[in-house]
């Protein structure tokens, strides 16, 4: 327990350092945050335009889809904010900077994550939250404590899963010194995919995002439970409540793979 506290404290320090360094360029920070917010806002306007033209999507109304959209985007924004360091990990391996982290008596994953905390992702987070709250007030959902809790859990589970993907992508740098760009397809493509109801896609796609990268699992099923929709794919309510846990499970597996990679690490020597 003391160890966990110590870890959290250290991470808080990292965040503090990032905040101070990014606040040196306050105007630039405000502008970037604002731009991120507008950019993800535009995406939602596109979704709105489609609902305006077609009325509904596979039986889902705009507020229902917006709830799902909000969940996915908040989860992704959180992961992008705190795990951004993994995105730049390839550079760290190339320059040999990773050697320095190995000398320190703390978890390497924590240090890599902490070395760049991206604050401007608050823009996307805020935009996701706005869409979510708008949807929540539009829907005829009784916001009981279990439902609220489930939403929070889904966001956390989704964030864990996206972080896991970023860790996995960075892990490849141990072998190739480049992070694989194809992974961006899964992360960014995953955001795009899972902000619409899963029934829209064909079987293969659905299976991929349910079993291989369980992104749909951690957001779509909880959304069903919150909305009180019956699942055309026939999942049970208890599964829908438990599904966010798969996100954490995924992250744990990815961190294992990461540790495997660390053990295989050979410095580039530069």
């Amino acid at each position, binding site marked *: 327990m003391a160890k966990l506290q110590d870890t959290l404290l250290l991470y808080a320090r990292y965040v503090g350092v990032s905040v101070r360094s990014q606040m040196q360029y306050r105007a630039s920070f405000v502008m970037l945050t604002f*731009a991120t917010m507008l*950019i993800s806002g535009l995406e939602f306007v596109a979704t709105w335009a489609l609902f305006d033209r077609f009325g509904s999507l596979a039986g889902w109304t705009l507020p229902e889809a917006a709830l799902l959209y909000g969940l996915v985007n908040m989860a992704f924004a959180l992961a992008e904010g705190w795990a951004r360091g993994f995105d730049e990990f390839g550079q760290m391996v190339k320059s040999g900077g990773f050697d320095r982290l190995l000398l320190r008596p703390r978890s390497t994953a924590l240090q890599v994550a902490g070395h760049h905390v991206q604050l401007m992702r608050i823009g996307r987070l805020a935009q996701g939250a706005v869409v979510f709250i708008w949807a929540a007030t539009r829907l005829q959902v009784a916001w009981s404590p279990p439902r609220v809790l489930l939403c929070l859990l889904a966001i956390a589970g989704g964030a864990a899963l996206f972080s896991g993907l970023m860790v996995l992508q960075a892990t490849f740098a141990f072998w190739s010194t480049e992070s694989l760009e194809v992974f961006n397809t899964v992360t960014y493509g995953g955001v795009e995919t899972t902000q619409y109801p899963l029934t829209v896609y064909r079987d293969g796609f659905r299976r991929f995002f349910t079993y291989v990268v369980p992104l749909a699992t951690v957001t779509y099923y909880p959304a069903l439970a919150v909305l009180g929709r019956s699942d055309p794919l026939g999942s049970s309510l208890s599964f829908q409540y438990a599904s966010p846990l798969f996100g954490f499970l995924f992250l744990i597996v990815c961190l294992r793979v990461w540790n495997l990679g660390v053990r295989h690490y050979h410095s580039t020597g530069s």
Partner: protein
Amino acid sequence: MRPYLAIVSAGVRVMLQYRAAAAAGFATQLFWGWIRVAIFGAFYASSSATQPMSLEDTISYLWLTQALLLLLPFRLDSDLVAMIRDGTVAYELTRPADLYWYWFSRTLASRTAPMLLRAGPLLLVSGLFFGLAAPDSLSALAAFLVSVGAALLLSSAFTMLMSISLLWTIAGDGISRLISMIAQFLSGSYVPLPLFPQWAQPALALLPFAGLTDTPFRLYLGHLPLSSFPTAIAHQLLWTAVLVLVGRLALARGLRRMVVQGG
């Protein structure tokens, strides 16, 4: 004219070297295309009303968007950005060429080559397997090609404006990303322009963004009849001229206030 053509061709040859990036881009775009086709298919299945564009046309439109994505004024010429940041831009002033057209040629090259590299395989694969229809007619194909050429000029003029703005706001990453996203949105890359609400159509048709992708795509599909080809091209070229003019003025002003420090 000759030196500028030489710059374009050298730039194209440099960009053609990046084949790995093109392969990664190909996979990404293919994946993206699948998702979008599935989503739009589901939307069409959810409504029985007649739409301004058939599902088949929309699917082709979506694939054209993926294949020709790099037509859009996305990223700036990174060498140029670096030069403006570290001040070596001063050397550019000594070259015996008109600075605007010199940079424009570079931009045009860095726009054209990656686009061609990515478009070829994607058009082929989506045409063979994923529902991209053949052009409406041979003349539609010709109209499409001419219009893509005009779109390249328009897109380069856009990019130039964004690059020139760096002379004022060195850290303009956020702004240029925002502008390119707005261009993407209003050119029909998120949602095909014909599917936007009816009340927005006149404004969309007037703005320059339609000329970036929507115009060539609809010529390809025959959704824009051949009779409107001259107006469509004129719209693209007119906006290009306007943006070039504004860009030249901005560049001249920017250079007047530029102070080159020694050392």
